[in-house]
Structures are given as structure tokens and as C-alpha cells.
């Protein structure tokens, strides 16, 4: 990546930030023709290392957002708006993709009006994606007014107890949860093995389902299964190392378990093992999860259904 130029000011105004962006972009003759596709806002607390965030995002490669705005929210009531702006070019063949980085450190009352800070920095007419690294935002947060898509990680914030809040957020804005994305290899392999002709009868005869795993994974998987297969008895168990789903019916039991680096499906038929199939599933990196989230900005009705059902189950509904 080539840096066209940088600018910083410990006591900035949004006007000076925007002027800096324009000035730096004027230096970028190769980037005069720009094709943009989204603005990514990253919201973190005082512990957030902004350079680490930018490194993660610059490592996205093919899914690079056109503009990244990292907001580091500091405690305290004293007004502070410090800014750092960078304009970079990501070479691709004989072309370059222009990327703008804006890092803002804020404290004081302005942290309650983040939408006013963010709005001028968003690329016109393009989706605004907000990645909340530490906490789920409040569903009434004004920042969500400028947000088209929210990215969270329930494994970091909220856990299973936060599923209800996530459900309320989802009613406000599209949501992608890294915790849900981490379960994709398991869910996909389950679907892939169920396509095998010899397992087709099981699909029509599932009479019991068991899900295992850590509390959050179990809750999401249970929400998914209960939403997809309503009326079928579903048991949650904390046995087993990784998350797993076991479908039983018609004398066949299919178990799919996600381990650290693989997903294994095993079938037991007539009381004995019939066959086993494994695929590699390396642990998901933050870059990989973020890239997946940015690619899939469309509504995900399967997640919505799983989330709503998981929230009902967690509330005892």
C-alpha cells in the first residue's frame, strides 16, 4: 500500500478534517478516478488501538472499504476532537484503489452526538457500515440513523445474555454478528452432507435435535434449528468441546461438530458408525470475519429468524 499523505491535529474541527481529506486527495493523481462502495465506521473505546484497527482493515484485501473512520471514544467530560487523516493507494495490477483513513479521538459532549461527526465523513449515496468492536450500541443511539448495516461480535460483547438487545437492534438496522459467522462452517457442512442421497430420508424424518457448545454458540444454534425445524424436540447440552448439532430420526443419527480447525460429520446407523466426513475450517480471523460481513450486506432472513427465536428461548418465551 502506498501512502499519498497524512495529516493530524490534536485540536481539530470537522471542517479542518474535511479540508485535509480534500487536500490529500488532490495529491493523488492516480486516484483521480475513484470507484467507491462503502464507508466503514469503527467504534471503539479508550483501549482501542486505532493503528491495529487500520491494519486489520488494510488486511482485508479484496473487500477493502473506500473510507474508514475510526472513532476512539475516551472517558471524561472535557471536549476533545483529535484527528488523523491518511490517504492511501492499494495497487492492483496497473490500477490503484484509493482508501481514506480518518481516526478521531473524542471525549466530552460530542460523544453523545457522533452522528454529527460521522455524517460529513460518509461517502455520498453509499452504504455506511458501523463496526462496534466493544459493545452493542443502544438501539436508540443517534449514530444508527446514519447506519445501513451494523457489525458486532456477541462473543466479545453481550454473550448469550445480549441476544435480546441484538434482536432489538436488528429491528432498527441490518446486523451481522461475528459469532454467527463463526458457526457458518458447521451449518454449511451439515447442509452439504444432508445433500448426500443416503441422508435425504433423514431430512424428512428428523425426530429429535441436540445442540451443544458454549452458551452463546448453543443459543444461536438452538435458535436456528428451532426456527428452521419448528415443532421438533430440541435439547441443549453443554457436553462436547466445540459446537455441534445432532439430528436423529428413522434409525439414523447425524452429528456435525466444529473443532478448532475442522468440521466433522459422522453418521451412526443401526447402532454402529456408518461413515464420517471432515472438512478443514481454520479458526476465523478478524480480517476474515470482517471481509465476510462486508461482502454480505444484504438482509439475512435466516439469521433474523435464528436471532428472534434465540431471543424468545433465552427469555423463556
Amino acid at each position, binding site marked *: 500500500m502506498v501512502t499519498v499523505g497524512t495529516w493530524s491535529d490534536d485540536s481539530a474541527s470537522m471542517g479542518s478534517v474535511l479540508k485535509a481529506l480534500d487536500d490529500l486527495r488532490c495529491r493523488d493523481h492516480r486516484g483521480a*478516478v475513484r470507484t467507491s462502495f462503502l464507508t466503514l465506521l469503527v467504534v471503539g473505546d479508550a483501549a482501542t488501538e486505532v493503528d491495529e484497527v487500520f491494519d486489520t482493515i488494510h488486511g482485508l484485501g479484496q473487500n477493502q472499504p473506500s473510507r474508514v473512520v475510526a472513532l476512539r471514544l475516551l472517558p471524561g467530560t472535557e471536549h476533545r476532537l483529535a484527528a488523523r487523516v491518511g490517504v492511501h493507494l492499494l495497487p*492492483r495490477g*496497473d*490500477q490503484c484503489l484509493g482508501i481514506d483513513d480518518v481516526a478521531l479521538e473524542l471525549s466530552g459532549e460530542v460523544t453523545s452526538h457522533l452522528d454529527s461527526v460521522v455524517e460529513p465523513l460518509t461517502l455520498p449515496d453509499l452504504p455506511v457500515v458501523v463496526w462496534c468492536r466493544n459493545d452493542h450500541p443502544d438501539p436508540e443511539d443517534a449514530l444508527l440513523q446514519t447506519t445501513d448495516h451494523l457489525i458486532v461480535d456477541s462473543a466479545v460483547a453481550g454473550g448469550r445474555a445480549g441476544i435480546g438487545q441484538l434482536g432489538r437492534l436488528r429491528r432498527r438496522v441490518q446486523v451481522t454478528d461475528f459469532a454467527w459467522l463463526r458457526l457458518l462452517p458447521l451449518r454449511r457442512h451439515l447442509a452439504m452432507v444432508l*445433500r*448426500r*442421497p443416503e441422508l435425504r430420508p433423514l431430512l424428512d424424518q428428523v425426530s429429535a435435535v441436540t445442540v451443544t457448545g458454549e452458551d452463546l454458540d448453543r443459543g444461536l444454534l438452538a435458535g436456528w434449528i428451532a426456527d428452521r425445524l419448528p415443532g421438533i424436540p430440541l435439547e441443549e447440552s453443554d457436553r462436547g468441546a466445540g459446537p455441534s448439532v445432532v439430528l436423529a430420526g428413522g434409525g439414523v443419527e447425524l452429528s456435525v461438530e466444529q473443532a478448532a480447525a475442522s468440521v466433522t460429520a459422522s453418521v451412526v446407523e443401526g447402532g454402529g458408525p456408518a461413515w464420517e466426513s471432515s472438512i478443514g475450517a481454520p479458526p476465523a480471523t478478524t480480517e476474515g470475519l470482517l471481509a465476510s460481513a462486508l461482502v454480505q450486506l444484504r438482509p439475512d*432472513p435466516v439469521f433474523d429468524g435464528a436471532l428472534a427465536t434465540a431471543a424468545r428461548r433465552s427469555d423463556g418465551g
Partner: protein
Amino acid sequence: MGDSPGMLGRADGDALAHPLFEGLGVDRAAPPAAVVIFGASGDLTSRKLMPALQALASRDQLSPGTAVVGVGRTDLGDEGFRRRMRQAVEAAARRGPGAGVDEQAWSQLEGGLRYVSGGYDDLATYKDLGETLDDLDREHGTAGNRLHYLSTPPGVFSAVVHQLGAAGLHRPAPGGEFCRVVIEKPFGRDLASAHRLDQQLHEVLDEDQIYRIDHYLGKETVQNVLALRFANTIFEPVWSRQYVDSVQITVAESEGVGDRAGFYETAGALRDIVQNHLLQVLALTVMEPPASMSPTGIRNEKVKALDAVDVLEPEDVLADTVRGQYARGWLGGEEVPGYLEENDVAPDSRTETYVAMRLRVDNWRWAGVPFYLRTGKRLPRRVTEVALEFSRVPHLPFAPTQAAQLGPNALVLRIQPDEGITLRFGAKIPGQSFDVRTVSMDFSYGAAFLEEAAEAYERLLLDALLGDPTLFIRTDEVHQAWRIVQPLLETWAEEPVRPVPYEAGTWGPVEGDRLLEADGRRWRRP
């Protein structure tokens, strides 16, 4: 078999409709099947097919029950075939941007690699093949499904298909759902031989089992022509004779004939490029909007488009076409040999390496708009593009000097390389005067979507496994394309004059330029 959703979705009925499958992309994952490659010891298998299968496995788009059976005259054995395919996958990994071979994907494929050696017209070969496929159904879960890929010289297509029929391998095995046959171009040498080939294929196969592959259609950017035209409001209203003055389609190659002279001497640019790639791009450019993106919807419209192309009368062929042959010249800073100096080229060869032609599309939308098509080898750069040049405004309210630098509007679809769209329009030059000049607005797919597009063969192999024929060529498309080039073949065969020479590294012979100059136009410089 009913029409499938094609490019809009999956293709094989309700077998995949289950709530647990939703949102997981399994509709774009191939069902279990044995992929049988005839001509497996050949270059295409190593260079394209096996890397494409490896890439599909790597993207988790192949079922664990996928096997690849190579068939060839060379006696490789299973182990030899595995070694060769491993080398192919390693070579592809070195060419690609990734970090080497995806070992997990390779191990998934490796267990299902088998090889059958024998002659293509020997029934014993097919009996061996049948036993191998039965074994794979039992042991590897290929579920009785077959995809036969004929990567052989076209002269043996008929023999392979008939022996498949004789051995009962032209249908899925019991419990299987499909048996399809993929055939590489050329589909015949002319209209009559294309009809003969179809007749021979149809003696054994139903048309919906035959997948005629033109890898050009697997290119993401060729499909983007459809997206640009039919997903946007602003282009289609001006996409007609009302606004379009002329259309230029260029398929230029900077390479020479290389090691393909044996084939090229019998084909030439007309059969190698015009009859298939160039006319397919033309069809996508002029076709009417389909009611849906189903295979039938799209292919029906393409056939109608080709059917509307006015076939040249023999006396018009000489006036409306130019054929050339590259001579020694300089390209990219290097001196390159002429066609007649290439290995395996006859010293008196009359094979054309350049074709330029003027066509008309006789329908309501395009009547009166000339279509200029050109293709050539050893042109200055490799580029494929469609350029629509628009009519000038009816009245320019500027002084002639103010608009002296203003050219006509143009919309250029660049298909390769640097895929994108350029819109050319007039803008005021900043300053006190009101001078107007032409500027270009560029859109680059590469800069908008950094995703690596799948290789054409990946896309097409997956579509064939999924039973989506949208991007394959139907028999009537083949016949329409031959119908258009047949007068050229016949007239040129009778013509005693050799193709006009052009210097390598130029945009073709001056006769090609004169074709447009006669109409008051000129070729774009892509």
C-alpha cells in the same frame, strides 16, 4: 426437464429445498458426481480443468462425493494421473495470488482421482470406465451422476459419444439424477458439418444433456454485458438505432499463433474467433431483454438476435469483409516473426489471422446501424471491447471553433483486460471561453469490486454440474453462427488472392481501415 432458474439460482428442482439449506449457498454447490475427462493427458486438463476443480473444492463448492476420472490414450495409471494432476494444481497455485495449494481441498479430490487408458473408439475402454464409475458410486458416493467432458480433438467427439451409448454410460447409473456431456468448440467446420455433428450427438444424447462450451461466456465481464444492459434504466433507452450511430466489436490478441499452428492452419481467425466468441458478444450486445434470466429466456433471445443478422451475399463478402495475415513486425519492443515464418505453418498458407467485417442486424431496434467486427492476432494489445458510438446532437449551439474538439458520445464496454465501462461525452474546458471538448469517464470493475472473479472454467464446470445451461451454446445458436460465416468461408475458398499482409504490432491492414472510411467512420484505438 423444465426450464431451470439458471443464472438466478439453482437448477435441479426441489431436491435442495429444505429450511436447513437456506442462506448457506449450497444451491451453488455441485451435487455428488463423477467428472469424466476424455483427453485427460492433454494440456487443457492440466492447465484449466483440474485447477478449476481444485478451486471449486477449495471454495467448498464440490460435494465430498466428487470423483475425477481421466480417460486417455496415454497409459498413466491412477498413480501417474494423480501425480500429473498434483503438478497441475501446484502450477496453477504458483500462477495465482494465493499462498500455495489448498491441501484440504486437494485431499478431498485426490481420493477420487482415477485413470482409464484406452482408445476412444474401443468399447473395452468404456467397459473399464463403466467398472471404475460403478466402483466410485459404491466407494466414493458419486451417486450415479456423470459429467463427461470431451477435451479431445473434435474428430473423436462422435466416436466417444457413440461408445458411451454402446456401453450404457450416456445415462445416469441407477439412483443417479443426471448424465451430461460437455463439448469443447469447434462445433463443426461449417454449417453442414455442424449439422452432421449434431445429428451424430443426438443419436445418443438428448439436447438437454449436451453442454457446448465457449469459455468466453464463462468470463465474468461477458456476463456483465447483460447486467449493464438489463439491470439499469439509463442505458437501454439509448440502446437502439434512434441514438446509436454504429457499433464496433473488437477481439484483439497480441499473441501470435504460438504452438497452435497445427489447429490454426485448419481454422483461421474466422472459425477460431468470429464464429464463436465474436458472434456471442454480438448476440449479447444486440439481443432483446429476456423475460427472465432463465437458460431458455436468454438463449432464445440470443438466437433471435443472430437470426436477425443479415447474411452477406457472395458479392458483398469482398466489399464488406477484409481478411489479413500478420507479417514480421515489432510488438512490445520485440521483433516478432510473420505468420508464414511460424513453426508448422505452410509457406504458402492462406489462413487468415485477421478478419474485419461489416454486418447489419435487420430488426426494429437495429435497422440501419452498421456493426463493425474485427479480430486479429499480433495486434498491438490484447483487448476485447464493445463500443457504441452515438449519433451527434441534431444541432450544436456553439461556434464551430468552440466545438472543434468535440467528438461523438460513446459507451465502451471493456471485456478484457481492465474490465470496465467508459462513457465519452463533451465538457466545457475551464476558462473564459466556451470551448467544449471530449472527456472520458471510466468505471473499472477491478477498482469497484476487488473480488477475484472465478476463472471461466470454474464457473462453467460448476454450471454443468448444477445443470444450468445458460452459459452454454444451444444447437440453434451454433447453426445461426455458422449461417452468418458460411458465405465468407465459401467466397474466400474460391478467392485466388491471399489474405492481405499486415505488419505485426499494427491494428491490421489498411484495407480494414478503408472498410470504415468508406462509411465516413474510423476504428477506435482501444
